[in-house]
């Protein structure tokens, strides 16, 4: 994404005082949400933003109580008025998405480009807005949480992520919060880019499995591409010593600082089942390391901790 687009998304103007700390992983299930839930409990002055809009889980462990919800309409689909249609097929011929067959629109394939509505000689095609999802603002014991739910099967997850971040930023600015902690989605595509773009710093959560190492490499390239300083944390670092060693070496060669080594600790899953941040649930080895990790990550991002 280029500078022009960044400006379009409005992240360039982010002030020096408001920090955005984004947690990503590449591979899913490495522990992002457990870690962010704990960061929520540890941060004193933060707005939380769950940018995994496909599968938003942060609210479940920070006891989010929805205060307001908003509809998110980001796209349109074509709609053919059968009383006006003369079945000439012009729409079907022009559609690049094979979304029209037998003068009917397949709503899942239609991308809302409007070209068919422009070419229809009868003016029989209109565009209708689609409800792509919802945005929520919730109260939690640890501060406000902005999250969202994309309707299953919908596109536009990147736009919804941007909407979540803009709302979190607005809340932070209006209420004098110091930082936004972002729980990112898995992968490296559109919603991950939208979660990382313009962030102050990124924490990449990995684990000593070949899959996670491979995905770490890819997500670090995305951080690089968008000039977001990245730090790594190895979760369940003791499940495979050889791979952990390999990870440490890899991070050294890439000049990525490892700021956390979280040991395997069964209280992490018990805390999820209890729907409590693990640092509030137990004071086991994982909780102690996550506390230290938060301190280091906040410091790296330039947050002044009280």
């Amino acid at each position, binding site marked *: *994404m*280029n500078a*022009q*687009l960044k400006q*379009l998304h409005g992240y360039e103007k982010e002030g020096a005082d408001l920090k955005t700390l984004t947690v990503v992983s*590449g*591979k*899913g*299930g*490495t522990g992002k*949400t457990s870690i962010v839930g704990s960061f929520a409990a540890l941060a004193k002055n933060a707005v939380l933003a769950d940018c*995994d*809009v*496909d*599968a938003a*889980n942060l609210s*479940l462990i920070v006891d989010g109580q929805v205060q307001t919800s908003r509809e998110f309409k980001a796209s*349109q689909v074509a709609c053919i008025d059968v009383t006006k249609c003369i079945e000439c097929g012009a729409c079907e011929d*022009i559609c*690049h998405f094979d979304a029209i067959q037998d003068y009917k629109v397949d709503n*899942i394939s239609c*991308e*809302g*480009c*409007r*070209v068919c509505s*422009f*070419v229809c000689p009868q003016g029989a095609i209109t565009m209708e807005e689609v409800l792509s999802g919802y945005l929520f603002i919730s109260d939690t014991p640890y501060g406000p949480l902005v999250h969202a739910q*994309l309707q*299953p*099967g*919908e*596109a536009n*997850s990147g736009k919804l992520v941007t909407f979540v971040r803009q709302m979190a930023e607005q809340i932070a600015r209006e209420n004098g919060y110091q930082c936004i902690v972002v729980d990112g989605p*898995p*992968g*490296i*595509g*559109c*919603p*991950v*880019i939208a979660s990382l773009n313009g962030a102050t710093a990124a924490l990449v959560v990995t684990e000593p*499995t*070949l*899959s996670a190492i*491979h*995905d770490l490499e*890819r*997500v670090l*390239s*995305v951080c690089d*591409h968008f000039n977001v300083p990245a730090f790594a944390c190895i979760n369940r670092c003791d*499940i*495979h010593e*050889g*791979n952990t060693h390999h990870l440490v070496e890899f991070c050294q060669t890439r000049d990525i600082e490892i700021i956390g080594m979280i040991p395997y600790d069964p209280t992490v*899953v018990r805390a*999820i*089942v209890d*729907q409590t941040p693990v640092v509030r649930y137990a004071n086991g080895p994982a909780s102690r390391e996550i506390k230290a990790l938060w301190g280091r990550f906040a410091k790296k991002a330039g947050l002044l901790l009280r």
Partner: protein
Amino acid sequence: MNEELLDSHEAMIIAVASGKGGTGKTTIAVNLALALEHKYNVQFFDCDVEAPNAYLFLKPQFTHLEPVKAACPSVNGTRCTFCGKCAEVCAFHALAVTKDRVLIFPELCHDCGGCALFCPENAIGKKEHKIGLIESGNAGNIAFFQGSLTPGEALSPPIIQALKRKMNRDSIVIVDAPPGTSCPVVDAIKGSDVCLLVTEPTPFGLHDLTLAVELVSKLELPAGVIINQADIGDDKVEAYCKREGLPILMRLPYDQELAINYAQGIPAIDALPEYRERFSQLCQNIKTLTRE
């Protein structure tokens, strides 16, 4: 391996999906392929193009490699009069026109062709740029295909669509889908004969399973649930499946040995013989499901 396992269903597309990431999609897909490879023609598609990992386990010899390209407009500067029509028709704001420039945002372009179609000066052509790769080759008896999105690129659906054009519908096709429930998942799983939803028995797993179930019912795909690490959490996933009438096709308890082998890229079936029997049973359960 059970005899005549899938008999009349020797050609079938099995998608492995999950709302939540890291629940074990790749573990299930890889071991299912290994359980079937000696008896059937098996094609494996790693459609998690943002984080393709199945190759780490199946270790294919890649013999074919092709780029996937996406198109975006390119403007002929001598013909363009900066009238602004292209920007006006673009629903995705992929073009912006100033008094002496046309700005193009390739990341936003959906390649609908509208700008070129409506340009009164015929000044707009197409420019292609590489957004990812498709690699293929054999892994034992398995024909293996994977897509990968270039880091920094945003759109994975075109890669998944290009990958799925390689499908041979006379085989058993196993699709390893990306996590989530949005458009890349739809592209990966649509057209499948059955969708396996992998979850874990935690509030996260349950929440994301309900979304995945909503998606498969929207797409009208027959689905069954696989509970991985079945003994680590609570019983709410079981209760949900019972309430919704969703068949549970397999329960895999947490297994330290399996986790250690997973970490090294060794499939369960190769390392731990008892898993061959479990996955054969899974095949039987899939067969029962698709016959209903």
